[in-house]
Each structure stands twice: as structure tokens, then as C-alpha cells.
């Protein structure tokens, strides 16, 4: 990197000095504002507000969780998702067995009719 002496800098600055008269502060400011209006400006504080994308993500996440929860709650209940009786042995005197899968109440009912629990067989 070559070093430039201060004298050279001054000389080069003089060479590149604008030839016209130096504008006053008011004109310079007005020109600057006119140029600035030509370019779309970011709203004050727009880029520096981190809560806006966070809020957007929060709302989106909540919507996803809500959809999943509603789907799970209102999903039709099938018998294979309910309690199942694999085997049943009644060891007391009885006349019949009724097994019901209640999809509305989401339960399984095993009802033994005319069972005499006091006179059951020893298992």
C-alpha cells in the first residue's frame, strides 16, 4: 500500500474541488430532501421492531396448534381406538354376557346377566 503525503492530498482535493459557487446550507438541505423523496424510505422504527415478526410467528404457531387440537378433539372415534376386551372368563354362575362399544361415550361395557357373585367357583 503506497503512502500519500499530506501535500499530495491537498493538491488532489484542490483539483477535484467543485468549480461552482458553494451553496448555502438552506439550498443544500432542500436538494437533499428532494433527492431523499425519490427513494422509498423505511418507516421510522420499522426495521428495528423485532416484535412484529415474532408476533407473526406466534400467531401462526398458535393457529397450527389450534388446528391440531381441534382435529384431535373432533376426530371420529373408531372402535380400534377404544378399549378392547381380548378375553373374558366368568367364574361365577351367570346366564349371558353383553359386550358393547359405546362410540358416543367412548367406552366399553361388559355386562354379565344374572351373575351370582356369592356362589362363584374357585378360580
Amino acid at each position, binding site marked *: 500500500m503506497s503512502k500519500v503525503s499530506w501535500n499530495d492530498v491537498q493538491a488532489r482535493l484542490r483539483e477535484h474541488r467543485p468549480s461552482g459557487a458553494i451553496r448555502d446550507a438552506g439550498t443544500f438541505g432542500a436538494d437533499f430532501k428532494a433527492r431523499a423523496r425519490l427513494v422509498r424510505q423505511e418507516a421510522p422504527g420499522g*426495521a428495528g421492531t*423485532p416484535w412484529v*415478526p*415474532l408476533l407473526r*410467528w406466534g400467531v401462526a*404457531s398458535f393457529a*397450527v*396448534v389450534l388446528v391440531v387440537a381441534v382435529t384431535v378433539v373432533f376426530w371420529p372415534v373408531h372402535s380400534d*381406538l*377404544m*378399549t*378392547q*376386551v*381380548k*378375553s*373374558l*372368563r*366368568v*367364574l*361365577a354362575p*351367570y346366564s349371558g354376557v353383553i359386550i*358393547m362399544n*359405546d362410540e*358416543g*361415550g*367412548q*367406552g*366399553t*361395557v*361388559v*355386562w*354379565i*346377566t*344374572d*351373575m*351370582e*357373585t*356369592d356362589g*362363584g*367357583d*374357585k*378360580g
Partner: protein
Amino acid sequence: METRGDMRRNLTWILMIGLILTAGVSLAGSTLSIRLVEASHAGQGMGAGLGDVSKVLQDNLPFKSFQLLASRSMSLPANGVASLNAGFVARCSGNQGSLSVVIESGGRKVLQSTVELRDGSPLILGGFSSGKGKLIVILLAK
């Protein structure tokens, strides 16, 4: 403007929330509740402690009154004995997918069953004779 770093951070949060929810769901069903209920035509209504099974009881059984006599619980997989009221005992062993249940009355086995319990889906074992009506054993995994 949302940067790629912000998106990555937000995605990480969503994944963490999802993991927490998944862990909560997978831990569900770790407790087996065993209740003894007396069903009869004397009186009317559903006794305390039966709110979660009231619909299945009222919709399927022709009784006016359901009263809770005893309530016990054990962890799943089960391997224990629950002494209920009126000389009834429930012996449970095995995991939720293949739970062995033996009901005893007065020291005698009266019913033996193997069931696959689903979370929140009660199993109603009923028809045991009682003075006022019928006794019911309710098994529920939560």
C-alpha cells in the same frame, strides 16, 4: 425485515413447543383408576367422582342412580391389588396394551379378563349382584 437468523430462532421455538406437547401426550395414560360403583333404581342421579364416565353409564345401563363406593389407582404397567368396598378386590397386572384383570368377591374369583385399555376410554365391568341393585367395576387409564 425478518432475517434468516430470526426465522431459524422462531422455528427452534416452535419445535421445542412441539416436543414439549409430544412428551406430554406420550406420558398420558400412566395411571390406572379402578372404581366400584353401585347402580340401582333407588334414588336418582350420578354420584360424585363419576363425572368422566357419566355419559357412558347413563347411555348404556338401565339404572337411575349411580353411586361411587370406592376408588383406587395404580401406576401402569400394573402389578397390584386394589381392595374395593363390599368385599370386592381387583387384581391387575400387565401393561396398558394387555392388562390382565381378575375380580374377586368374598375371596373368590368371579371374573377374569384381558383387555387393551385406551387412554380416557373406560372399561365398565358390570352385573355383580348387590343388595340394592348391581355393582360395577370401572377401569380407566389416564
